[in-house]
């Protein structure tokens, strides 16, 4: 009833958002799909229709498959890691101790630093020559590590940097969710003799399903599209060990002037992300 009366003003409220959504989200997706079946000619700069040729050449290219593998491995590690860490951090920040506001403040500092700044900072700290991290390792009697210079450690280093930067942000949403849990529920469960772990599994977790769904989906999409750390720190190296699809797409567009191929990669990346997110929604569907 009420909804019907206000439908006009609701639409009016939503208009800017819907317009933005169409202009900045849906139209580019549509455009990318269209552009991915075209290729640009030299000299004239004209576009010509090539059908699925861009996709065919991608599937025949080991560089693409390697890039796909790196993207999937990266997301398989970083997403669960960030979600678990963010949850743990949120639980810590939710404890009732003195000066908790101070801790809530400092955990947010990495979030406030911009991604390029964070990358440049960590690049200096992780430098194999005179980096502070290696100095600490050496002082502790350990061997210095190559970090971003090694094909075995580079992806791990980027995961660590991205998580350092991202976890604080995601934990905010979870903290908000935790604070919504009525204290009486926890009290009641502990009176019933529930251990902390049981309390967590049977009381907190079910009540956190909504914020968790948001976090899982947001973290996944953010990390599938993560690009700047690889671009700034490794450029996909060493030995293509950090060459994620986003970077490969960027290189094709802006270094190798192959827009069609770049769009084809974007479309594939979009399909993968959509599939993963759809599955996540299915598994985490809330009952209320």
């Amino acid at each position: 009833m009420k909804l019907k009366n206000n439908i006009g003003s609701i639409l009016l409220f939503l208009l800017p958002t819907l317009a933005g959504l169409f202009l900045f989200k849906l139209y580019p997706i549509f455009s990318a799909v269209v552009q991915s079946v075209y290729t640009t000619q030299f000299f004239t700069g004209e576009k010509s229709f090539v059908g699925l040729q861009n996709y065919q050449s991608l599937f025949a290219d080991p560089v693409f498959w390697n890039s796909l593998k790196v993207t999937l491995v990266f997301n398989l590690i970083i997403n669960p890691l960030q979600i678990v860490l963010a949850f743990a951090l949120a639980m810590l920040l939710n404890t009732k101790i003195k000066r908790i506001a101070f801790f809530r403040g400092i955990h947010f500092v990495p979030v406030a630093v911009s991604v390029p700044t964070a990358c440049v900072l960590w690049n200096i700290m992780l430098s194999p020559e005179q980096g502070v991290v290696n100095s600490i390792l050496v002082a502790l009697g350990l061997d210095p590590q190559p970090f971003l210079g090694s094909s075995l450690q580079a992806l791990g280093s980027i995961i660590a940097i991205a998580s350092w930067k991202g976890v604080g942000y995601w934990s905010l949403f979870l903290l908000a969710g935790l604070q919504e849990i009525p204290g009486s529920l926890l009290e009641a469960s502990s009176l019933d003799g529930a251990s902390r772990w049981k309390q967590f599994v049977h009381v907190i977790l079910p009540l956190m399903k909504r914020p968790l769904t948001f976090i899982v989906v947001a973290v996944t999409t953010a990390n599938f599209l993560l690009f700047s750390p690889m671009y700034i720190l490794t450029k996909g190296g060493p030995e293509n060990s950090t060459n994620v699809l986003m970077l490969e797409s960027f290189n094709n567009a802006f270094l190798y002037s192959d827009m069609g191929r770049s769009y084809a990669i974007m479309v594939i990346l979009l399909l993968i992300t959509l599939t993963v997110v759809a599955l996540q929604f299915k598994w985490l569907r809330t009952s209320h």
Partner: protein
Amino acid sequence: MIPKQPVKRFAAWCAPMLAAAVLFTGCSQGAGTSADSSSSNGQGSSTSSATTEISFEAYSNYEKPLTKVVEAFEQQNPNIKVKMNLVPIDQLTETIEIKLSSKAEDLDVLFVDTPLVMNYSVKGYLEPLDSLIPADAKAKWTKSAVDTVSYKGELMAAPMNSSSQVLYYNKDIFKKKGIPFPDADKRMTWEEVRDLAKQLTSDNVYGFSFEQVDKAYQLLALSDSLSAKMLSDDGLVSSGYSNSPEAVKAFQFYADLFNKDKVSPKIKKEESIDYFTSGKVAMFVSTNQNMPKIRDSGLNFGVTLHPYFAGQKVATPTGAWNVGISKYSEHKEASAKFIKFLTLGEGAKILFKEGGTLPPQIDLLNSIDTDPKYEQFPDNVIRIAAKESRETAVPRPKTPGYLEWEKNMNKAFEDMKNGADPQKALDDAVHVIDNLLKKYKGVAAN
């Protein structure tokens, strides 16, 4: 209760209007600026009374000399303003690529690396200069410089400077180790340099470093010395060339400096000159135009000739920056005026004097040979460079896909520095490169 209702209503209507207002102001602002720029564009090309602003995409290393050039140019041409966008080398090609592939009009004059002249020409990024600069201009540059900036008989960019490399060394470190200074006129072999570097390496001091760590421009001197060819004649195949046995041997030497001999620091190009000027590196192969920087750092240094492999060809790097005009520029006349000033007129002299770079202009080159100033150390560096560029320089490979070739080779060099096997790194690189070069079929190099 009663006063709450109207307030709610008011808010309900106000918010969307506010949002709409924000949107509209956003739009009108955008429209305003674009209208402004188009009107100034129109005036710039038709009447000379209004000021024209041209945008110049330049490599940040040239900030000091180029600022002086621009100052002098603006003084002579009060109605043209030059806006310099200084970009570090790693971002320069990308910035240009992004702007020109989107046909941006806010880019007028740009730096063009010699091997990229063909790449930019093929993509239609550059305005041919033949009709924009005087016909006798070509005779004022060296023939080789003119050749490198021409494509299909047309001048696509104007040569701004050239470069060569010399071996700088830190005299204090040599003295401390009791090792005699290298002979200024005798060219050392790479093997001698390596052995010397081993003796000079100790705690916190590395024996040797390249200036352009991981960069093809400088490292090609190694493979050129072994007469390795990097690409097929049509410039479209790297497999069998860039990973030939000679190339592998040359770059194995590079990889060993870091991993086996451990005489070179695993640093990036941006750090290399500071490592030398702060005394962390004893020998430093670097470009001639770094002399003013090294001299001003107060380092006690000497100079000798660029090394080569024992019993092999003497090969030195060479490369140049040229300036071109964007095809999409709306100020081509003004841009041409600036280019003439920078590459033919007074600007060329300023750049030579302030930047210490090797000039492609015949009269300036002659002055290096005759002016007694260049007999004295350290100014003799430029005379050495001029001689090397005439006698031993090997230009970089000619291919429409130079950008693709270079980016992937640089990656391979970096991997080798970090411990990858050179054979494998090069094999992987040529595979990627050949795939990327396919699209240039039909636009052969020659």
